């Protein structure tokens, strides 16, 4: 039944995508984030649905939608360099077979992130992507929150996506992703064009945020607490109602403490004393090992090079993963890799900060300012939560990077269509007298 439902849904996306090619890209993102195959058990399971959507997205773009190229940014260039560098390190990988397995899906995510800004060009497109990221992953995020609320919480015990433990179905990864989705859904609630803004939407968004919080906290992942704290701090910092928000947070935290178990509290206390917990202390050992490893392998050991730590971690008779995006990239792709990776992240944060700073005082551009702020907070959450989980090649990072490029390109196109009314904006708009090739003088789309 679920297989048939997913199959019909995918067919519906393809049908819509034939008339509006950007929907094919949304289909790929849906398949990549949700991984519907792991939620199904019949004929849908072996279908390479992401590959199908990816090929259709490229084909429909090339045949019927190739126009209005975005400005080539530094992040775009870095993504291309990043894709080439991980290919090079895979060629010299210490463990070639598993390295090529990981390269296969990591390369696709980066390549697709390079492609997304070509297709996602307008406010509606960007909003649709955000909806795919939030609503499309409800079967993972909200079901985890509901199960935690019904008493199914616990580290590694939430039955997510058939216990597949891949992608977002891993407790810590889901906790971080759920926190990021709160930020995006708050943005959508305020600026959506696609959905109505009425009391039903308010109720749905409130329920979604509650489920996300439960998913982040109820999974007993320490990453969840860290990311929720970072998100709360960011909301507080950017709010003009600081006292009210602080009081609200204190009330929520106080009420929440009545519902958490002693086991949860004990687990969270290990954040401050990592040596008291085996899992936390082993991470410190692994990070120390990685630091020494990269001294002898300055170009990195290639994907999955953590296998080399077999026998080096006391108490473990199997290799332990890096458990940190920074050490994952450092160990796998060396000093050059970590520089490229950090440059992508930091330039993305800077671009989002720029979007926010340039547009915040203009009411008609408030959506773009708030989008920049939301994406920037998401990146900060990713940087803080990712310090404890190895998700450097998960699609969520690259979709945020791609959305940042799309948003920046959208801003430039809006400025290109603006008519300067005084010299005070003429210098600012730069090429304001020119209209974009895809646009008419009145800002309407030229077909």
């Amino acid at each position, binding site marked *: 039944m679920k297989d048939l439902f997913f199959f019909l849904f995918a067919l519906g996306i393809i049908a819509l995508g034939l008339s509006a090619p950007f929907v094919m890209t*949304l289909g790929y993102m849906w398949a990549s984030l949700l991984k519907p195959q792991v939620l199904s058990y019949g004929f849908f399971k072996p279908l390479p649905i992401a590959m199908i959507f990816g090929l259709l997205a490229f084909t429909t773009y090339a045949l019927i939608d190739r126009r209005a190229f975005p400005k080539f940014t530094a992040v775009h260039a870095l993504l291309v360099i990043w894709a080439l560098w991980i290919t090079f390190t895979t060629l010299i990988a210490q463990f070639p077979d598993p390295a090529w397995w990981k390269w296969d899906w990591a390369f696709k995510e980066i390549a697709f992130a390079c492609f997304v800004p070509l297709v996602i060009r307008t406010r509606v497109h960007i909003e649709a992507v955000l909806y795919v990221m939030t*609503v499309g992953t409800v*079967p993972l995020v909200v079901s985890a929150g509901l199960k935690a609320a019904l008493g199914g919480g616990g580290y590694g015990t939430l039955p997510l996506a058939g216990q597949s433990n891949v992608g977002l179905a891993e407790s810590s990864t889901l906790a971080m992703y759920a926190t990021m989705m709160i930020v995006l859904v708050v943005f959508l609630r305020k600026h959506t064009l696609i959905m109505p803004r009425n009391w039903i939407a308010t109720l749905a968004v409130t329920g979604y945020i509650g489920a996300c919080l439960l998913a982040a906290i109820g999974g007993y992942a320490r990453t969840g607490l860290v990311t929720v704290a970072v998100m709360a701090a960011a909301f507080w910092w950017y709010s003009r109602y600081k006292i009210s928000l602080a009081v609200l947070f204190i009330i929520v935290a106080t009420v929440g403490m009545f519902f958490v178990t002693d086991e949860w509290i004990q687990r969270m206390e290990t954040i401050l004393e990592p040596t008291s917990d085996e899992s936390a202390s082993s991470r410190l050992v692994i990070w120390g090992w990685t630091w020494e490893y990269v001294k002898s392998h300055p170009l990195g050991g290639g994907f999955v090079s953590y296998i080399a730590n077999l026998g080096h971690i006391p108490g473990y008779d199997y290799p332990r993963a890096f458990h940190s995006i920074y050490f994952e990239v450092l160990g796998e792709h060396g000093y050059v890799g970590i520089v490229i990776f950090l440059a992508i992240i930091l330039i993305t944060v800077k671009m989002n900060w720029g979007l926010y700073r340039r547009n915040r005082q203009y009411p*008609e551009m408030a959506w773009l300012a708030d989008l920049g702020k939301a994406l920037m907070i998401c990146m900060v959450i990713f940087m803080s939560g990712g310090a404890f989980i190895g998700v450097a090649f998960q699609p969520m990072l690259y979709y945020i990077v791609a959305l940042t490029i799309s948003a920046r390109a959208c801003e430039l196109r*809006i400025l290109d269509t603006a008519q300067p*009314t005084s010299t005070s904006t003429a210098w600012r708009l730069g090429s304001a007298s020119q209209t974009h090739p895809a646009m008419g003088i009145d800002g309407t789309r030229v077909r």
Partner: protein
Amino acid sequence: MIDTLTVLVSHGLLAYILFRAVVLDRTLPWFEPAERNRDQSDKNATNDKHSTAGQRQQPRARGSARRFQPRFRNNPPA
């Protein structure tokens, strides 16, 4: 049960969202012109503490705009 329910509800909603996105993509102008220096009366454009929405735009203190003016405009040659 929860999994099935969330799949049905969320994908029904997502189908509606995608359909609406396609409709809006065809009806709304892609990039509406921004009139940045109009009298901004919408004070609730953003609830951000840094926002100056609603305040009348003041001439910029920085000299960037003047940088492109001919040097002799304010100091004509003798």
